[in-house]
């Protein structure tokens, strides 16, 4: 999987590349408008992470260029502008998703995975992990072919875990992913969800992949 990170802040693009490389993504970085345009012209990427404010030109212009060339690369806008206009303009121009800075890397990773899944919908919509199988098209989960009945939030939580498998996910990232900003910083509610999800997975076939990491958060792992 090839990812292009168009971001002028070196520290940020490095972190992103670092985090994504573990998930078998091949990351390239373009730090300004011209480099980005050149890279897009000669390559095809599964997903392009696009910052809007760039030296040398607007990220929205790059987006226009991508669409003009009839490229099918997925585009995820990552902007610090957090302004509604940009979000609407970006999505109208054909971006697949919008994430405002600052974001959790786990959130970014989950969004990229979702975009790539949607792009390759002719391919496999099944995500397997050990004896667990998530069908992202039907939004159903099975453990050793036993169906697991999950609530909406539990499903979202599991998908988030699966997308960020073997990585530590902070409680804050989970709270924000499930309920948005309003519930950020409020962790009481996560425990119940995790407890319920873990119990359902265990009951269906001993799939105990959710590990609590002391003081930090959770990890979805088979080790």
């Amino acid at each position: 999987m090839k990812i292009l990170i168009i971001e002028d802040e070196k520290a940020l693009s490095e972190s992103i590349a670092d985090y994504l490389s573990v998930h078998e993504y091949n990351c390239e970085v373009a730090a300004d408008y011209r480099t980005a345009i050149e890279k897009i012209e000669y390559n095809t990427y599964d997903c392009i992470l696009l910052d809007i404010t760039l030296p040398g030109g607007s990220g929205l212009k790059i987006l226009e260029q991508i669409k003009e060339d009839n490229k099918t690369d997925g585009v995820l806008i990552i902007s610090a502008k957090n302004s509604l206009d940009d979000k609407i303009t970006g999505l109208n121009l054909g971006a697949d998703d919008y994430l405002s800075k600052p974001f959790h890397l786990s959130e970014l990773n989950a969004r990229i995975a979702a975009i790539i899944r949607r792009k390759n919908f002719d391919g496999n919509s099944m995500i397997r992990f050990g004896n667990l199988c998530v069908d992202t098209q039907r939004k159903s989960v099975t453990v050793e072919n036993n169906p697991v009945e999950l609530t909406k939030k539990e499903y979202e939580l599991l998908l988030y875990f699966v997308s960020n498998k073997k990585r530590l996910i902070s409680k804050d990232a989970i709270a924000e992913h499930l309920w948005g900003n309003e519930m950020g910083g409020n962790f009481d509610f996560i425990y119940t969800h995790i407890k319920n999800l873990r119990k359902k997975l265990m009951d269906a076939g001993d799939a105990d992949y959710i590990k609590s990491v002391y003081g930090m958060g959770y990890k979805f792992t088979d080790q």
Partner: protein
Amino acid sequence: MKLIAKYNRVTIPIIISILLISSIGYYFILHRILIYQLDKDLRIEQNEIIQHLKETDQLPETSDYKDQQISFHPTNLVELKDKYSTQDVYNRREDEMESFRRIDFLVTQGGKYFIATVKKSQQETEDIVRLILMVTFFIIAMLLLILFISNRFLLSNLWKPFRNTLEQLNQFNFFSKNKIALQKTDIDEFKELNETVLFMTQKLTLDYQMLKGFTENASHEIQTPLAIIKNKVELLSQSENLTEAQINVLQSLNEAAARLSRLNQSLLLLAKIENHQFAHIDTINFSSMLIRYIDNFDELAQAKGLSISKNIEEEVVLQMNESLAEILISNIISNAIKHNVDKGNIGVELNKKYFRVSNTGPELRTDTAELFGRFKKESSSGDSLGLGLSIVKTITDIYGFSINYDYKKEQHVVEIIFNDLAIE
């Protein structure tokens, strides 16, 4: 007070008093002239009597007509100056007092002295004065009335450009594409006003755009380093073999960064709302939006064992910005969940008049009115920024909704009363 009313309040008493004083003066002058005229008539009469005496040496006959009476009385006086006076006499026929002007003068006839008296009725004179006065008063009244009416029409016409400017200013909005359009006028004062208004609005628009730019830039500048901190901490947390002390440091860093980023976003949101950056008005179905949000938080509420009772009227349609409506709902509902107790309850009520959310929760320690202020919060816990209600208040202010917060019978009640204009 209207300018015209103020103007009238000053000018009308002055006009009335001037007219009153002058009509009193007018009355006296007129009266004096007519009496003088009467006295002249009396002198003619006197001359006639003296002439008659000279020619005939006989006293003329006394006469007693309605308007002129002549009489003679013998007297011991040998010298008397001509004496003019006014006398009120009872008129038996008309049953009223009648004024007479009289002249008394000395005449001699056959060596005897007589006082001759000629009286002329003043009635006609009085009638004329009265008539003239009445006409005068009528003219004054007409004048005032015409002045009043014409002022009203003329002035309201004159003020038209002013009203137009005022209306344009009222409708002035940083977002509307149509520029302020002022009516042309040939009155210097209004021309000056319009020029100033144009200058001011242009300056304001410019300042506003600069401010908007500044807000955006500040956001960008703060968000990026924040993102770097957050992501680096996240990366570092991924390392194996961290000691407990290191984990604690990382967690504190993570929490502080998360709090800072929420704070920054909330402050930016407040600034944006206050700068009317959410001016776009949508027609939104508040009912379905509310239900969607409650459903979204449903599992969260269940996790805490909260029971939610809903009394939501369908099709409550509001004219407001969609994003702001979402922020309003999610802030209030998430507050009701966050600041609740285990196995507590939440009541959500919505109709065309108000939106009310009540929830169980620990007793308030601060004044309810203060809760809308910025950074006012009940707990010092990190999950509360103290900006949620302030954001809600700012949104309600924009649309002219009124908002109340009350703590009664162990229930926190937030009530938003809609503005008639926003309801469709």
